[in-house]
């Protein structure tokens, strides 16, 4: 049996196929919500920096992993390739999926003339979250330096009428 993993850019037809993978990671996620998230990443826009949604597929075409990537200008690092929303299922053989992700990211960075790669690890960033815990050692072995300097504040949903635009905000 061919065990080769391939990475390829998502097309629209792959969005629905990938839903079981992302919903396994994010219980409660609806297909509609996933589609609304994914669609902009598979719709190329002229004049914008490269970005997209990349899939890791096995020989049978099943999607075993995915990640969002883009090119941006970072004040410290210069032109960087950033990756986020990395989905690698927690199953035996996951290191091989990670290896395919890392290989693909390296190639994307080279193709786009990037000087560095910024990766947002999977997981909730909560202490002890297993998703990040098992990805970290693998990335370290691949030359990544882990920087735990990100912070997250979850905000309560506000009714539309209560949302104040920056221009309306004044401080006396």
């Amino acid at each position, binding site marked *: 049996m061919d065990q080769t993993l391939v990475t390829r850019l998502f097309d629209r037809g792959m969005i629905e196929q990938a839903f079981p993978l992302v919903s*396994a990671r994010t219980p409660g996620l609806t297909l509609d919500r996933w589609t609304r998230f994914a669609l902009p990443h598979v719709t190329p826009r002229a004049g914008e920096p490269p970005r997209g949604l990349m899939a890791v597929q096995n020989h049978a075409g099943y999607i075993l992993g995915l990640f969002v990537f883009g090119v941006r200008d970072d004040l410290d690092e210069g032109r960087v390739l950033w990756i986020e929303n990395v989905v690698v299922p927690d199953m035996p053989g996951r290191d091989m999926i990670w290896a395919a992700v890392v290989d693909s990211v390296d190639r994307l960075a080279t193709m786009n003339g990037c000087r560095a790669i910024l990766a947002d690890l999977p997981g909730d960033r909560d202490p002890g979250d297993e998703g990040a815990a098992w990805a970290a050692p693998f990335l370290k072995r691949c030359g990544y330096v882990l920087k735990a300097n990100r912070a997250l504040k979850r905000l309560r949903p506000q009714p539309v009428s209560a949302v104040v635009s920056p221009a309306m905000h004044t401080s006396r």
Partner: protein
Amino acid sequence: MARFSVAAQTSRPAAGKPHPCDVCEVRDYSACAPLDAEEQKRLVAIMTPIEVPAHKPIFEESATADHVFNVTSGAVKIFKLLPDGRRQITGFLFPGDFLGLTHNDSYAYSAEALTATKLCRFPRRKLEALLQELPKLEQRLLGIASHELAAAQDQMMLLGRKSARERVVSLLLMLSNAAVRRGQAASPVALPMNRNDIADYLGLTMETVSRVLTQLKTKGLIQLLDEKQVRLAKPEALREIATGF
């Protein structure tokens, strides 16, 4: 704590009885196929054979995922609970299939035996440790794992098909193809699940599933041998239906 079925019985071989691996019918096409005798021995050392009666749970979604499983006989349905409390069957698994996909140490799906089912049960952490030493097994597992994921992706593609007839026919062909991969005949196709399970899986009503099966029978495309077996009388015509022709 893992909520295994109380009905799941371990079946350690008694003295004089053959070891389950020696009489395993799926050995040639399951995860352990590429292993040599010594490697197989190490895998068996962490494995426990279990038997789950029909309609009993194997594990439940969100329960702590301490184990992964390899189906060696019988049939399994996997499903997810929807936010509104309904359940959606996302796939059917058969001998040779591997299951136990997790998220944050919890099972991502629930699994229930459709028929009396035998499985090899492996402690997840011990298996992962063993995989570091047995790259052949890791590669093999990646090639076949996770069947829950593959089955659910098959379902998504299947639900994308427009008509009820295309969905039912696609399922029959999928089951047929799976049987061929297990070294069985392409037809007749075994249906260990009931019509309600099929309807749930296909996003149809039970009445629609029964009506479509009757239509296919009337047109001579299939023969309903009994509730649990369908002969594919005209496979080529069925394949054309499945692809929307």
